[in-house]
Each structure stands twice: as structure tokens, then as C-alpha cells.
């Protein structure tokens, strides 16, 4: 539905996810090159661009191997005179930032926009990183929207600023902005045909080192000074008048929580909403502080605004009282909501709360005591479940379960850290399992194991793998090849024969790659033949040197998608209760959410509508009780195209 709103050519109002609004705005700004690597909460930007690519056909798009490559790709396109955009999650900028700092020095040419999305509460991230801190040290302008409408407007403005000052512009969002749906007023959509340039006509100099770097640095400082007054005047720094000498400075989604909290309390404090995170509208802030006795700074994560407001206050109004994180009134932890802000304001203003929120949540906690947590879990039919079961079996048969270190990595398989696997001595950032393994292998007597998915393999694990092989490390690497970048919603990666918009791409053949790198052994297993996986895993674990086990089977969700496309029915499974002897391997050792227990006879029962028919549960059942509803006992065939072996 909303894709139609992205592609329609007329103006008008549409209910859009902020991520979709970004796409629409970029299309209106005539973006020509898009490159992204997925990551929550930005993945829908990639997905939407990818979905509408065949419709437009007048921009080029790649799903990049990682965020650094994506940023360099769009910077390259911009240097070559085409408007470009990338988006990444907070931690993606850690990977990309090496290039970012240099790109700031050299500048770019055509409009180049980078969305960086933080994730307070770490809903789907490994840390609660505050990406605002990338702007100032790299001298890259950064702006921050609060709503879907602003995400749309700011994306268009970012292209203008970027073109005018020949700098990348970053748009900083947080999960609650990216995943907010709201009404957006669209403009007309007028695209131009895609056309390549000639380097001689667009060329510039894009290198920085030593004396040149120093020269560029001076120019960069001047550039930021030029941008400052423009940001100072920006309509996205909004002063809302109110009563009294207590004011609020806020931005992003915290602005929305603050406004609603004030409405609930029946107050309207003068409020300055900051839209330009860097450079800040310092004069506006100073003027605002001058008219106040107290300023309350409402922002999630680090006291980014608060510290800068404090510095500005030193000259503007040294006596002002600053209420924020450093005063102990707000936390640097988690994300905010209306109750959190309302409570802090109410306490300070000595006003009664609109509702006793603490009583509500306390009662709720008591009422919920009968529920067990519903944690994320491998989908029914997930190939990772079978792989991990087989690894557990192999380790216990070799009697080395307590003589290993298991370095986990980032992807759906991260859930190996939960029961029943509890495989996770470490899990840091994409590709870290192999880097850590190098150090552990030197320092430990134990068997060192690393595990990556196919997307992680090509994203950041490769240098670590080269390093392990080069240094003759004794490490076993499991590559969980499920054909797709699953965790972020099934995007293609270098392991796919396809790219954004279903364009053909060249699939990297990982066996050949590992062979060429000099791996000591390479074994391919199919986790749906779960029992047969145990022996090859044992062999690989015992082999000397660098052994790779590639466990190959499509992500179940992706497999379902392929089956739907080629109209192959999903045959679901039932448990044959005459064969079942309530041994419960399927329960204790497998944790498939389709599996329940029939309270009347204590036998396992499969919730057929949830079942994916993988028959992995049959493989782990000593009596092979589960079978397909049609009586067949073979798991489904591989569906993905272009998979060798």
C-alpha cells in the first residue's frame, strides 16, 4: 500500500513509515545512486528503494557488502556528479567512519546523504550507541527529525545543503522515529532519466594526506563556519513560545514525548526544538537561555545537547539552572516515553501526574506473573536449529563440551546464546568472532570455535579469516549459509545471485574462496539432514589447522518465499502419537515454537499451522515420530537457485 504512496507522482497526503518518507523524499530530490547495508531500524529504507527500483529504473542501487563500502559507493557516485544516498544503523557508522572522516576533508560533489539510526534501548542492537558524536569530530553536518513528515522534509533539505556545500550531510534518527508511521505531505515527483557523466566534466581532487590534509582542514573549518548561519536560521530549529521562565530544550523523538507530557500536565513551557545537531544553532540557544531561570534538557542517551547547552550558558546566562542527566533528573539509559518525561517535569514543576504510572506498571507486573517471557526464537524450520543441535551432539560425543571456547557473531544465529544451546562465550560486533579467535587461540589450551553467517562472512569477517589462515591458527569456523541476510528481513548479500530490485548479481562461491585462501579443510553439511551432520562436524573439530564447516540450507522464511514463488506447497508435519514415547528430545533439545505438549496424554503435538515441515524434529527424535501430514519423511528440497553442491 505504502509503496504506492512512494511511487505516485502527484502531491498529497499519505500515511507513511518515516523510513518510507525518506525514500519518497530522496526520489523527489532525484537521487541517482543508492547503496546500503541492512540494519535495524533502517532496513526498510533499503527494502523500499529495492522494491520500487524496477518501477523507476532511473536510479542505480546496490546492496553493499558492508557500511564502509556503501558510504564509499555513494561518495564515489557523488564525486562523479550523481546524487546519492546511504543509510545504516548506529554501529554501521563505526564500520564506515574511517572513510567518513576523510570524505569530510575532501568533500563531495553532487548531493550525498547518509542516514544514521541509533537504537536507544538496544531493541535490536548490541549497544545503545549515540551517533550524534560522529558529526563534530568529523566536521560533518548532522540534522535530526522527530516525525515522518520531518524525515521527509529534512531528507530533501539534506540534499540541498549537501549540494550547496559539497559535504555529506548526515540525518540522525532513532528507532522510534524510523518506525513511526504518520501523515506526510508529499510534493510532486519529477524524475530525470539516468545518465552517466564524463570524469573530465565533473572531476575534482579527492585525496588527503599530510600538507594537503592540513590545507583541506582549514577549508573544512571555513565550510562549517559557512554552514553555521544557515543552520542557525533553519526552520527545523523551532522556538515554541510558552509561559514562564522555565524552558525546555529537546530534539528528535524526545520532543514529541515532552510535548505530550506538557499537554498531560496542562503546562506550556517555552520550548526550543533542535533540528540541527551539528552545527548547533548556538545563538538561538543563547538567546533562549537568556530569558530563562531554568532549562530542562530532554534527550535520550548521552548528554550531547546538555553539555553544549551548559557551555553556551557559561556566557549567555551563567546563573541558569540546568536540569538534565548531570543533575540526576534524567537517565542515560534506555529510551524515553511520555511517562518518563512527564514524571520528571511533574516533579520539578510540583504538578500532579495525569496518571499514577508507577501504580499502573506495578499492578501490571503482578498481573503478568503467570506469563513466561516470549523471547525471540528461531522460526519453525530454521536451519540454524539443526546446525546447532548437531554441533552440540558432536561436542558431547567428543567429550569436549567444557573444553571449547565458542565465539558467536551477529545474525539470527546469535540466538545460539539462548537455551538449549547456550553457545556464546563472546559476541561483540559483526566479524568479531574470528578476530577474537586469533587472540584466544594464542592464549588458550581449549578448542577455539567461531561462527558466522553468510552476510557476516562478507561484511567484516573476511580480514579476520585471512588473518587466521595466514597465522596458521587452529580454529574451526562454522559458516551458517542460509542464502540471505536473514535477521534484518532477508536482503541479498554477496552470497546471492541477485541484488537490489532482483537484478542479477554474481554469487561469490565460498568453497572456492576458502580453498584459494588455503583452508586446511572445507566441509559442507545440510542441517535438514541433522543426524548426518554430526560425524563431519566431529571430524572438522578434530582436524588440525583452519577447518571450515559450511552448513547450507535456506532461511526458513526465505525458503517459504521461494516456495510460494515457484508454487511448491509447504507440507506440514504431525507427530505420530503411536510412535511417540514422550522422550521429549524435540522439546528439551530443540525448542521449535510449533511444538507443544498435549496435556491429555502428555505427548508432543505440532501446531500444524505454525509448522514449516522441515522435519528436523524427526531427525532429533529417537523414535522418528514426526512425519509430514501426507506420510512422507524426507525434508523439503533446497530451493535457492545458484547454490552449488
Amino acid at each position: 500500500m505504502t509503496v504506492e504512496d512512494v511511487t505516485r507522482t502527484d502531491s498529497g497526503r499519505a500515511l507513511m513509515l518515516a523510513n518510507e518518507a525518506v525514500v519518497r523524499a530522496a526520489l523527489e530530490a532525484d537521487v541517482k545512486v543508492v547503496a546500503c547495508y541492512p540494519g535495524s531500524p533502517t532496513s526498510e529504507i533499503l527494502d523500499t528503494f529495492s522494491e520500487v527500483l524496477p518501477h523507476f529504473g532511473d536510479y542505480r542501487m546496490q546492496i553493499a557488502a558492508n557500511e564502509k563500502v556503501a558510504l564509499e559507493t555513494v561518495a564515489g557516485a557523488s564525486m562523479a556528479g550523481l546524487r546519492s544516498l546511504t543509510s545504516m544503523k548506529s554501529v554501521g557508522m563505526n564500520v564506515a567512519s574511517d572513510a567518513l572522516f576523510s570524505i569530510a576533508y575532501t568533500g563531495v560533489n553532487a548531493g550525498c546523504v547518509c542516514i544514521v539510526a541509533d537504537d536507544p534501548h538496544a531493541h535490536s542492537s548490541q549497544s545503545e550507541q549515540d551517533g550524534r558524536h560522529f558529526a563534530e569530530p568529523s566536521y560533518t553536518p548532522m540534522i535530526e527529525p522527530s516525525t515522518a513528515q520531518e524525515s521527509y522534509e529534512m531528507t530533501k533539505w539534506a540534499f540541498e545543503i549537501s549540494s550547496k556545500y559539497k559535504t555529506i550531510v548526515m540525518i540522525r534518527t532513532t528507532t522510534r522515529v524510523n518506525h513511526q508511521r504518520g501523515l506526510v505531505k508529499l510534493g510532486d515527483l519529477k524524475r530525470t532519466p539516468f545518465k552517466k557523466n564524463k570524469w573530465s566534466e565533473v572531476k575534482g581532487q579527492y585525496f588527503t594526506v599530510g600538507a594537503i590534509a592540513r590545507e583541506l582542514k582549514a577549508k573544512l573549518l571555513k565550510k562549517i563556519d559557512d554552514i553555521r548561519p544557515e543552520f542557525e536560521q533553519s526552520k527545523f530549529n523551532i522556538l515554541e513560545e510558552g509561559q514562564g521562565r522555565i524552558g525546555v530544550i529537546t530534539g528528535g523523538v524526545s520532543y514529541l514525548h515532552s510535548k505530550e507530557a506538557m499537554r498531560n500536565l496542562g503546562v506550556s513551557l517555552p520550548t526550543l526544538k533542535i533540528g540541527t545537531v551539528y552545527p548547533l544553532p548556538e545563538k538561538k540557544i543563547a538567546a533562549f537561555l537568556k530569558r530563562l531561570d531554568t532549562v530542562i534538557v530532554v534527550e535520550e542517551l548521552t548528554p550531547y545537547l546538555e553539555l553544549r547547552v551548559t557551555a553556551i550558558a557559561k556566557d549567555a546566562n551563567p546563573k541558569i539552572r540546568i536540569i538534565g542527566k548531570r543533575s540526576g533528573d534524567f537517565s542515560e539509559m534506555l529510551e524515553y516515553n511520555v511517562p518518563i518525561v512527564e514524571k520528571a517535569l511533574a516533579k520539578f514543576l510540583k504538578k500532579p501526574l495525569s496518571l499514577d504510572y508507577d501504580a499502573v506498571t506495578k499492578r501490571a507486573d503482578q498481573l503478568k506473573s503467570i506469563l513466561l517471557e516470549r523471547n525471540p526464537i528461531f522460526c519453525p524450520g530454521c536451519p540454524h536449529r539443526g546446525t546447532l543441535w548437531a554441533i552440540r551432539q558432536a561436542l558431547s560425543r567428543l567429550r569436549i563440551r567444557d573444553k571449547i571456547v565458542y565465539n558467536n557473531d551477529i545474525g539470527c544465529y546469535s540466538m545460539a546464546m539462548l537455551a538449549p544451546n547456550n553457545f556464546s562465550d563472546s559476541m561483540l560486533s559483526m566479524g568479531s568472532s574470528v578476530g577474537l579467535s586469533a587472540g584466544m587461540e594464542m592464549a588458550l589450551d581449549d578448542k577455539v570455535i567461531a561462527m558466522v553467517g553468510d552476510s557476516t562472512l562478507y561484511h567484516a569477517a573476511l580480514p579476520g579469516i585471512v588473518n587466521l589462515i595466514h597465522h596458521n591458527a587452529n580454529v574451526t569456523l562454522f559458516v551458517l549459509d542460509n542464502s540471505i541476510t536473514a535477521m534484518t528481513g532477508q536482503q541479498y548479500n554477496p552470497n546471492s545471485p541477485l541484488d537490489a530490485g532482483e537484478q542479477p548479481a554474481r554469487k561469490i562461491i565460498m568453497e572456492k574462496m576458502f580453498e584459494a585462501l588455503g583452508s586446511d579443510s572445507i566441509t559442507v553439511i545440510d542441517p535438514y539432514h541433522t543426524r548426518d551432520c554430526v560425524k563431519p562436524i566431529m571430524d572438522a573439530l578434530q582436524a588440525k589447522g583452519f577447518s571450515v564447516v559450511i552448513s547450507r540450507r535456506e532461511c526458513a522464511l526465505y525458503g517459504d518465499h521461494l516456495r510460494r514463488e515457484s508454487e511448491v506447497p509447504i507440507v506440514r508435519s504431525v507427530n505420530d502419537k503411536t510412535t511417540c514415547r514422550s522422550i521429549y528430545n524435540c522439546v528439551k533439545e530443540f525448542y521449535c515454537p510449533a511444538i507443544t505438549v498435549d496435556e491429555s496424554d502428555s505427548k508432543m503435538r505440532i501446531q500444524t499451522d505454525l509448522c514449516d515441515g522441515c522435519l528436523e524434529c524427526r531427525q532429533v527424535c529417537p523414535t522418528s515420530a514426526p512425519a509430514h501430514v501426507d506420510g512422507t519423511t524426507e525434508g523439503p528440497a533446497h530451493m535457492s537457485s545458484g547454490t552449488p553442491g
Partner: protein
Amino acid sequence: MKDTYDIMFCGVGGQGLMLLSAILGKAAVDSGLEVMTGEQHGLSQRHGSIYVHFRVGKPISPLIPYGKADLVIAMEATEALRYVEYLRDDGVVIMSKRIMPPPSETGAVALDKEKKRKYVTVDQIVERLNAVTHKIVALDSLELATKAGNPLTENSVLVGAACACPDFPIPTEAVRKALLSLVPRKTVEANSAAFDLGRQAGGTCLG
């Protein structure tokens, strides 16, 4: 006076919550109402607990404050209780009677030697919810959907029931129109029937 009507959708990853929210969103916008949602995408789409904050009227924040949701629509019964901190006193709960136990609970039930441990039941959930409200519509949505001609139309049953709430702000016909425009063509008839069955069932419960 509350100027916003707040709906909390909840369910289990994979149940089609986003479609439900898209349907009501379209219906609200087509009726000239302001809408804002706070959705959950990403990590926990895989059989984890999921939700959408859906706000009609004059919302400012994308998140419903605790204790202020007028309506909870739960596609799975335990999820109605899981988000009970959002429900206002005397708010309405429309929930499917379907329970999808998490594997940890199945483990506890299976491995209890004395066989005393039982799954949480719909009755237990209703009893707990009664501490906050008695306006609870617990529907056998699968049975009604099957009766409508397609077991996959459970969502339409729940949306239909929502339209039966006395203060539900979106006109019923707008919801039906949005619903039928967003479901697959082949299923329009079944979805329409499911919507009506839901509406009747909701009407009976809520009087």
C-alpha cells in the same frame, strides 16, 4: 476529555500484525482522521512478542503512555496480558482465544514429572485482565474465520469486533473498505464475511 483514541495491537511475530495496523491506518486516513503509530520491526519478528502503538485523533508521541490505551487488540491471548500496563481502567480488550505457548513453557509442562504444570489458559488471562476491565471480547477467531470460508481471515474477525466498540472512532464502512482493498483479491468475500462475524461477536459481548 481524551482527544486521542489509543489502540495497542499485540501478537506473536508472523501473525500479520502490520497488515492489521495498515488496514486501520488506511481506514482512519480515508475518514480524514489523524493517525500516528509506533511500530516494532526488526529482531523479534521471529515468534517473539510484537506490538504496534496505534493512535487516532491528536497524538503527539508515537508511544501510548501506560494506562491510557482505550483498546487492546491481541491476536494471541497471552499477549493481551503481556501489554496490560498500556490498558486503561475499563478499556476494551479484543482478543483471540488462540494461545501459542513459548517453548520455555512447553519445556516446563513436558518435563514436570508429576504432570501438575499446565499451560496458561484463556480463563486465567481473562481473570487477570478483570483487575483492569470487564469489557473483554475473547473470540474463537479461528473458528469464526473458518466459518467465514477461510481460516486465514482471523485478523478480519478481530478488526470487525473492534468496530463494534461503542466509542471506536473509525467508521465501520471505512474499515471494511480499507480491509477489502488490502487483502488478496481471491479472499475478499471470506474477509468480508469474517469482518461481519467479528462485528456480531463483538457487538454481543460489548452490548
